């Protein structure tokens, strides 16, 4: 019964959603807990600061990109893609919840202090009550959506890079990160497939769809290099074998991107990368981030004692 005991170490991410009333679930409640059977305890004496910073950084990538993609809800070119983009956003949000909760467990000092008696859980406090400089997401995910072609180009590059990262993370020495990555690999494989198919469809569609796709790729390309820049947080994570140095993924990801470009008949953009440092990972964000956070956080901040 060892695995059962381990499950008692943490709350299933779905517990908070159920509210004790299973009748609201049309298809039952047999959701899979991604951390079932995983030892989620932080070993005594282990300094949680480095793993917390790493989980926070990856969680922020997922949270901020989830918010951006969710802006397509009710605005996509047709109902089917509206739902597809919302599904992708929800996958990212699920990963953000797991990673932010892990960050809070590894180092409680990263969680913003709320008024005494506030029922807001740690993952929500991290999402809604941190100021912009405390966010560690790459700038790449905070940029405005642009049109559908820009969104597809951005998603293709991000999903290709994130898939390679998560595949590597499945062998992290942190069993929780490894389990979160294993869940993410299945999700991001679909995200890449979705973006890749649309990339090909737009490239081979009409003159207008191709023009927009090529322009979209030009738009997202300068920031793409940021995904492969190793920040101090990632350098420590790679050294301690619970994380990955993203610069070691470049060749693998490039091969995938080259394949999609060649199949689509689209040239690799000849535009220089913007900047040379992983500024987003250092808490220095673009103007778009402030607007995004304002919308993301305004309701929660107005009700720090609120229960959701």
């Amino acid at each position: 019964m060892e695995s059962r005991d381990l499950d008692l170490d943490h709350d299933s991410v779905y517990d908070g959603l159920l509210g004790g009333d299973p009748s609201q679930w049309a298809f039952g409640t047999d959701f899979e807990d991604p951390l079932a059977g995983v030892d989620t305890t932080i070993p005594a004496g282990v300094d949680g600061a480095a793993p917390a910073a790493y989980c926070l950084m990856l969680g922020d990538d997922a949270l901020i990109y989830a918010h951006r993609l969710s802006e397509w809800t009710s605005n996509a070119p047709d109902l089917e893609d509206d739902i597809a983009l919302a599904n992708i956003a929800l996958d990212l949000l699920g990963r953000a919840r797991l990673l932010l909760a892990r960050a809070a467990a590894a180092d409680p000092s990263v969680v913003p202090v709320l008024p005494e008696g506030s029922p807001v859980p740690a993952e929500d406090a991290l999402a809604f009550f941190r100021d912009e400089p405390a966010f560690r997401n790459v700038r790449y995910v905070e940029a405005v959506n642009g049109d559908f072609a820009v969104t597809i180009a951005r998603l293709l590059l991000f999903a290709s890079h994130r898939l390679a990262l998560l595949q590597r993370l499945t062998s992290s020495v942190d069993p929780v990160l490894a389990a979160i990555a294993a869940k993410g690999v299945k999700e991001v494989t679909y995200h890449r497939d979705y973006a890749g198919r649309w990339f090909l469809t737009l490239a081979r569609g009409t003159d207008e769809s191709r023009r927009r796709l090529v322009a979209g790729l030009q738009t997202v390309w300068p920031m793409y290099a940021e995904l492969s820049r190793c920040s101090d947080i990632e350098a420590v994570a790679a050294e301690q074998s619970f994380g990955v140095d993203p610069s070691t993924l470049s060749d693998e990801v490039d091969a995938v991107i080259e394949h999609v470009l060649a199949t689509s008949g689209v040239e690799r953009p000849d535009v220089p990368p913007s900047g040379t440092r992983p500024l987003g990972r250092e808490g220095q964000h673009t103007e778009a981030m402030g607007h995004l956070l304002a919308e993301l956080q305004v309701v929660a901040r107005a009700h720090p004692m609120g229960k959701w």
Partner: protein
Amino acid sequence: MTVQPEWPLYEIFVRGKRGLNHVHVGSLHAADDEMAVRHARDVYTRRNEGVSIWAVRADLIVASSPDEKDPLFAPAGDKVYRHPTFYAIPDDVPHM
């Protein structure tokens, strides 16, 4: 090149985890067959329902007309002897 004003309609069939056969769940629009399967995954299997999807172009389905309802189906209405309900099933025959 002419651009179609709307994507073709597809009918979607999903086989559930506990179901043996594919069941019609609805319809959707998609630019091509592969995209129809992807869209069906996104639109009709979001709540953990499905393990297999069939997508069929709606214009490829041959359907009976409501006008033919009586000539097609009414004649079967009084042929009670076509139902195998007049046989005693032996106790050792399972799954009946």
